């Protein structure tokens, strides 16, 4: 084999992004490329963009299906159980105090006012932080419609998944006005649950958008906060250094358009390597 062999092969893999986006790889090749994708940020970005292009090709073909199909599919749905999305959630009750489950308010934190302090002070213990985050999750259950409750159930499952990870850790930060951001994260599961508390009051047409910050990379949107509902972020790699929240126009922005209202480092929860 020529000394250039390995070099060429690597080059070759990058160039498979377009055939991959078009589903034009053979099964073995597809698997190999998917493996490669997990390590190649550049390819992931490229594949995502190319796949969106392919979807335009798909969309342009829309045609109404036969009317009878609707009843068939809806009937099938009624007797088809759903996947949980991942391996069944391990039922391990998190070791958290009772207020966490919504029966009591979270413990108050008294603070002597200080002249100047950093915007956010990390909590001393993970349990206290987790307690705060989880309290945030369950404080908002009242007055929800069934649909919202169902969505929350899915989310609760995600949260339980993160909580059950062997390396789950939590951190939180609070600013001078008592507003806080909380994170429960698992580096091995690449997941985190993020809550905002006390930031709810925004002018109409504005939203809080969550960003993942990594060195030398553009911030990546992790989603929009809706009121007090926590966000579940997946696919976080270990290079993630911090989270930031900005105020953006309704619907969110592709990149932050304002200074963060809050930023929280992820080092204490096992990221930022």
């Amino acid at each position, binding site marked *: 084999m020529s000394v250039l062999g390995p070099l060429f092969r690597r080059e070759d893999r990058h160039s498979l992004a377009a055939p991959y986006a078009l589903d034009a790889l053979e099964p073995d090749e597809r698997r190999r490329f998917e493996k490669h994708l997990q390590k190649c940020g550049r390819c992931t970005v490229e594949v995502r963009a190319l796949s969106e292009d*392919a979807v335009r090709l798909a969309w342009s073909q829309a045609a109404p299906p036969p009317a009878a199909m609707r009843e068939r599919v809806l009937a099938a749905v009624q007797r088809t159980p759903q996947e949980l999305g991942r391996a069944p959630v391990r039922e391990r009750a998190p070791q958290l105090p009772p207020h966490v489950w919504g029966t009591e308010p979270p413990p108050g934190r008294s603070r002597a006012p200080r002249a100047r302090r950093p915007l956010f002070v990390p909590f001393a213990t993970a349990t206290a932080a987790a307690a705060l985050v989880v309290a945030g999750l369950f404080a908002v259950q009242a007055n929800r419609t069934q649909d919202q409750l169902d969505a929350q159930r899915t989310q609760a499952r995600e949260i339980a998944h993160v909580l059950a990870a062997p390396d789950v850790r939590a951190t939180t930060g609070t600013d001078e006005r008592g507003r806080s951001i909380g994170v429960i994260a698992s580096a091995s599961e690449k997941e985190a649950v993020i809550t905002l508390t006390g930031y709810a009051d925004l002018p109409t047409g504005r939203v809080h958008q969550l960003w993942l910050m990594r060195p030398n990379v553009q911030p990546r949107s992790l989603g929009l906060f809706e009121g007090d509902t926590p966000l579940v972020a997946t696919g976080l790699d270990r290079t993630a250094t911090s989270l930031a929240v900005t105020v953006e126009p309704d619907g969110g922005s592709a990149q932050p358009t304002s200074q963060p209202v809050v930023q929280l480092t992820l080092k204490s929860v096992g990221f930022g390597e």
Partner: protein
Amino acid sequence: MEADELLVLVAGGDQKAFEQLYGLVSGPVFGLVRRVVRDPAQSEEVTQEVLLEAWRSAARFDPGRGSALSWILTLAHRRAVDRVRSARAAVDREQREGRRYHDPAFDQVSEEVEAGLERELVRRCLNRLTALQRQSVTLAYYDGYTYREVAERLSLPLGTVKTRMRDGLTRLRHCLGGAA
């Protein structure tokens, strides 16, 4: 409600949300599947499988990675391609197909024109690609050929086909102007 929100509700077992979602996505899914699979009965079958799979595995949808519609259409495309490839493999065993491919400008429009505007736009943009870009993209995406098969059909080196696919898609993006 938008497909993204609906799919999240569907993941929580909400059948009403699924009904609404059906209204939004069944047309795009069916149209795409039929374009790839061709056979009407098989297209219906694959469409149903895809919609049911969307119900079953809705919890895997990650709004951070793209829209619900892309998620479902990506799923639909993969299933359609799987189907057409296995059907083709069966046919190929009996009779080796001719290698000719004639490329009139892209005009294979099916009868019911639903997404009229988008379809017209995509058609026009496809026609702005070079013939090789267009053939590479459409043979793969609409006809379900692997890029190796595309290379063989067009008598091009593999590397050229990969490049044409990427350039074709990128040019399509610019032509479509990112308007959803």
